[in-house]
């Protein structure tokens, strides 16, 4: 296992590259969820003809 993590001495580079990649992908995937929640929340609070929703 530690051999796997060490990646032949290149562990830092390999894991950093994968960690950053998947962190960015996760952020890209979360963003539409947050925006969607805001749109629905604005609609629920009766933003009045969608003016509030448009800001989201």
């Amino acid at each position, binding site marked *: 296992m530690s051999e*796997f993590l060490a*990646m*032949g*001495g*290149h*562990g830092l*580079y*390999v894991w*950093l*590259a*994968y960690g*950053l*990649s998947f962190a*960015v*992908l996760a*952020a*890209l*995937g979360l*963003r*539409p*969820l947050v*925006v*969607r929640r805001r*749109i*629905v929340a604005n*609609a*629920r609070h009766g933003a009045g*003809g*969608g*003016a509030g*929703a*448009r800001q*989201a």
Partner: protein
Amino acid sequence: MGRFTTWLHRMGSPRWFFDLSRPWLVGFLVVGLTLLTVGTVWGLGFAPPDYQQGDSYRIIYVHVPSAHLAEALYVAMGVAGIVVLVWRMKLADMFVAVTAPVGMAITGIALLTGAIWGRPTWGAWWVWDARTTSVLVLFFLYVGIVALRQAIPRADQAGRAAAILAIVGTVNVPIIKYSVDWWLTLHQPASITFTAAPAMPPSMWVPLLINFVGFYSLVAAFVVAGLRNEVLQREADAQWVRDWLGRAT
């Protein structure tokens, strides 16, 4: 109106897109997450080490798919830009708006993983060769489109300006692609092409192919999700959106 134009307008109807796109979103998401998991576990744990680079080459499984996707997204945005200028299609303008920040982030992944791979391989985080420089230009083109849309208050003008930059910027994409052939670059040329046998064994390139499709599929899901939100926001005054939101809340 020609049949093509009729089809374009139907395709470009935000409501039509919204009504149909939910299954696409789910499909892309499931396929993308599955393939990325398989390709990444395979690439990190089971693909053999490279005879020259050892294990650092495993960065290829995130670097090449993200770099390729960064270019493809830009081309798609350029095509959408033409549709915006010629046919004034709302959905194409929404596509440019949604894709620009996503493409910027994916180009960021390509640059970051490239820098991290460069350190043990070339001995430097960054080199100014034709490939790395043209990808940095791609990144700034995405930044430019995001910034233009935010800086111009009138939506139609912002849309046209972003569309023009998207179209003009596509000139950079063939430069990125052929930079490794046209100039003497530190960056290696493509290991896998349509025209020749891959320069690596199947145990190395199959996981690469899997992650490749996985990246495309997952990001397609993100773009569809972003577009659906964009439709809800921009069509907020339409009765069908109010009805839909009324059911969602």
